[in-house]
């Protein structure tokens, strides 16, 4: 990464069963560095209601990827298209529960091994 480049943090919350597919698709686009964590959550549907039972916490997987600004839109597109589970009729369609992608700012990034610091030069 170049010095003074804008950097963003992408947090993608996706279905655990689509994670491998998404990682492979990101690899094909040259994105290797990421952090994975297991989370549980729900969306605006308030979980799943099955009969009289409500499951309010659904297991998901979160991918955290830090990328330079210009690579973000492509990565988001890749995650978006590969994390969709599709229907039998429309394989590219999305379903409820496919997940969300959040993009936030990163001010500084430090590599512990070298102690190197990358500070963003953001216009105020």
């Amino acid at each position, binding site marked *: 990464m170049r010095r003074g480049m804008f950097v963003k943090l992408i947090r993608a919350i996706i279905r655990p069963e689509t994670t491998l597919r998404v990682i492979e698709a990101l690899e094909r686009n040259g994105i290797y560095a990421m952090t*994975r964590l297991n989370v549980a959550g729900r969306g605006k549907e308030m979980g799943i209601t099955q009969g009289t039972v409500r499951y309010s916490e659904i297991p998901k997987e979160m991918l955290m990827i830090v990328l330079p600004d210009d690579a973000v839109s492509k990565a988001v597109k890749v995650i978006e298209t590969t994390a969709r589970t599709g229907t039998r009729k429309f394989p590219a369609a999305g379903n409820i529960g496919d997940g969300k992608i959040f993009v936030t700012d990163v001010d500084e990034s430090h590599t512990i091994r070298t102690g190197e610091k990358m500070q963003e030069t953001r216009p105020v």
Partner: protein
Amino acid sequence: MKEIIAIIRPECAEPTKDGLEAIGVKGVTFISVTGRGRQRGTIRAPDPEGTLRREIGVHIMHHRGLIDNPEDPKYHEPVEKEIELGFLPKKMFMIAADDTEVPAIVSTIIKLNRSEHQGDGRIFVCPMNDAVRIRTGERGSKALL
């Protein structure tokens, strides 16, 4: 206010906790995560001092079927080859801190985690707009103390 996200080696987590306590950082959230860097979790085995091998020996044995004991009939000499390990276990620290505390926290984490080997981890400092202490409803930097 800033949010500091540090992704470090799991075995360095305890010294880092103590180090952060020593500089007066009390509130920290720890999460066990898996991750990899630009090297895709790839290592070259065996490395001359065997340090990397010890650290992630379990993974090497798992992936290559290597056994450390030469007496074992299944033992064979390790091959110099790149092994892709995929996602390695890491610990993620999340710290909310005032802007003025950030350099001290970052330098402490770097000092305690630096082994100059690949996989030491990264620190990201992200902007944070607000913080609320749920018990009292205090907001902003008051909620961090």
